[in-house]
């Protein structure tokens, strides 16, 4: 794709010449067919100009060789992102100290290995049960239990007493025949708890080929968690997996954040040579979107939230992201 560069106000450019003509030629004509035709012509002309400009740039680059100007980067929503004040600086002393003191300090200090309890609502549908089984294969040291009509608060209390470090609840909406649509992750014993919207669940059985995977402890890749909230959510998600990966298994879990959606993927990798690496996706895959992060274990009525999504107040710009 050709780079879209906005012309600066003082700078004359080819698109500038066409732009002022737009209202008279295209929009203000009464006949719609003519309007359409004019618009098509304009597009064609613009595309042609773009193509020519690109060819010209390529020529210049070939001529100059090493001294050529760098290739223009295309504008995407990510590159145009509104800068966030809470972006974590790795060398910031206060953040480092806060990390040491927070609820995951024990995990990152390699003191306690995670032990996860995985459950769903009462009477989970067969699909949700399959999803839970697959998640249990993906997250090491996980136990799948039936909910047994227990409340979230009571489950959290009992699980904390029994020495579990994390608790995952899968929510499903049976009325709309949706399999799983929510995921609540409670870190024990002191929280925090995160509520995600779960979507695009695809089990490994549904993927193109069923692949085998070993039970080695996986590596975890956290991508693109830049803000303070993202940093915290990333730490929380990382603390689900054992801190000591077994590299022999060549399994890698990726939690990739893009535009506030967290994509989960599971791969086996193989280094073909020094430069090339082959990936094979093993599944399951799903997408998470953070709805709230609560301080302490789950208490939706009287608890306090560290962050809560407010749609109309926060999501006023497409280029503002929170993670």
């Amino acid at each position, binding site marked *: 794709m050709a780079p879209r560069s906005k012309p600066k106000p003082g700078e004359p450019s080819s698109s500038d010449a066409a732009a002022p003509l737009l209202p008279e030629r295209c929009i203000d004509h009464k006949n719609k067919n003519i309007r359409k035709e004019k618009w098509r012509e304009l597009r064609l002309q613009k595309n042609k100009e773009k193509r020519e400009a690109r060819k010209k740039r390529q020529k210049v680059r070939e001529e100059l060789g090493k001294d050529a100007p760098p290739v223009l980067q295309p504008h995407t929503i990510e590159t145009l992102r509104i800068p966030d004040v809470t972006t974590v600086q790795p060398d910031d002393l206060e953040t480092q100290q*806060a990390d040491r003191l927070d609820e995951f300090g024990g995990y990152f200090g390699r003191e306690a290995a995670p032990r996860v309890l995985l459950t769903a609502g009462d009477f989970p549908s067969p699909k949700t049960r399959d999803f839970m089984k697959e998640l249990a294969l993906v997250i090491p040291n996980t136990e799948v239990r039936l909910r047994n009509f227990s409340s979230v608060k009571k489950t959290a209390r009992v699980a904390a007493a029994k020495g579990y470090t994390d608790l995952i609840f899968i929510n499903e909406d049976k009325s709309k025949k949706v399999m799983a649509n929510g995921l609540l992750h409670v870190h024990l014993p002191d929280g925090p708890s995160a509520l995600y919207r779960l979507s695009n669940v695809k089990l490994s059985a549904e993927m193109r080929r069923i692949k085998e995977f070993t039970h080695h402890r996986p590596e975890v890749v956290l991508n693109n968690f830049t803000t303070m909230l993202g940093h915290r959510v990333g730490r929380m998600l990382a603390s689900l997996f054992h801190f000591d990966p077994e590299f022999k298994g060549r399994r890698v879990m990726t939690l990739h954040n893009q535009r506030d959606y967290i994509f989960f993927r599971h791969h086996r990798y193989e280094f073909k040579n020094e430069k090339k690496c082959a990936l094979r996706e093993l599944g399951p895959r799903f997408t998470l979107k953070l709805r709230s992060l609560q301080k302490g274990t789950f208490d939706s009525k009287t*608890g306090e939230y*560290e962050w809560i999504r407010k749609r109309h107040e*926060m999501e006023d710009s497409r280029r503002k992201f929170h993670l």
Partner: protein
Amino acid sequence: MPRHCHNVYVGAETGVLKGINVTEGEVQTSNFHNLTALERENEICSMCWGDDEQRQVLLGLRSQQVKVYDTVQGTFTMSRQLSSGSGPVIGLAKHQGAVITAVESGIVTLWRYAESERVSVNALTTGEKLCRMRQSPADSAVLATGGQENDLQLWDLARPEQPVFRAKNVRPDMLDLRVPVWVSDITFLEDARRVATCHRHSVVRLYDTASGQRRPVMSVTVGEDEPLTCLSRTHRDHQVLVGSGRGRLELCDIRMGRTVLALKGVAGGVREVYCHPERSYAASVSLDRFLLLHDLDTKKLLHKVYLKSRLNCVLMRRNFSLNPEDAEEDEVEDAAVQPAPASTGPELEDEEDDLQIVEEFLDVPPEETKKKKKRKLPKLKISGEDVADASPKKPKLPKLVDMSKKKKKKKVKAGESKG
């Protein structure tokens, strides 16, 4: 260099005290702690001004320590480990130069220099934990406490055996079920006889302590399932600002009995709000690590300051203003009204000493404390305008005088009738 270079102070969950200088155009922040030696136990749970000149800041920590920060010298001058009850320090106040502390297990203590003169109150005879202790602005011996399953109580330190006022829960609901109580914050209104509380069960209640009615005179529901965590009275007597654990900040009108406006810009649970008593500024700190400064008249968000740690407490100076000239004018007036601060230098150096400033405490003649024993809660007629007319800038001092006069008159009358 100005006398005070910071006009807002903020206490963080990591135990860091931060000073912020907010002006119209710019915001400067500075940390007063060494960032390499932070401990979770040192979380700042409560803060208050240590003196009338707003020179010292008292900090109550999770580890039951009370620290004194001197804003002029820029150092921590005192630190003392409490030895009463358990749990974090959830309330701090100053009474006749001595410090009053309240801890989560319910023990409220007035720390006198002599051990025999210390006053200790157990405010948690029922319930699970104490959540807040606040001091009456009119009478520094009157305290209000409340907590989880522990409704509002007013205490007079001169008569510590019994609470002077004990609130009664509202009547059972339409299903005849008991309404749960979880007082999360308390504030005294302008006339000091009315007290407003906010509850984790999304309700603001107003009590009139002089009316003889123990049930709330007004109960306002704010939102749906909004765990209200903090409350502050504003520059208008009939309005209180309420913050919730779900990140809502609402101005609640207790004359109309409903919320009148919601302030924008909060993403996490509000931990404390602090409104300027005379101007329309409101500062709030929340778990999303921002300090927000709103204008209550225009509803506008004036400043949003990122402070890197989750924040628990906020204090604002009396002369706070976005326009530095106004603040300086106030300072001059303050200096004129109040006597110059006594040189506390030698006392402050003595770190082994007790928390309170001994001189100030000794200055108080014993007769006055005796008088206080007989004193009931101040029965003042509510006339906000009169008070405002009499003292537009500093309402506290004239009111105190008023009260003592009235009390004397009453006493005389009572004596006559008895005689």
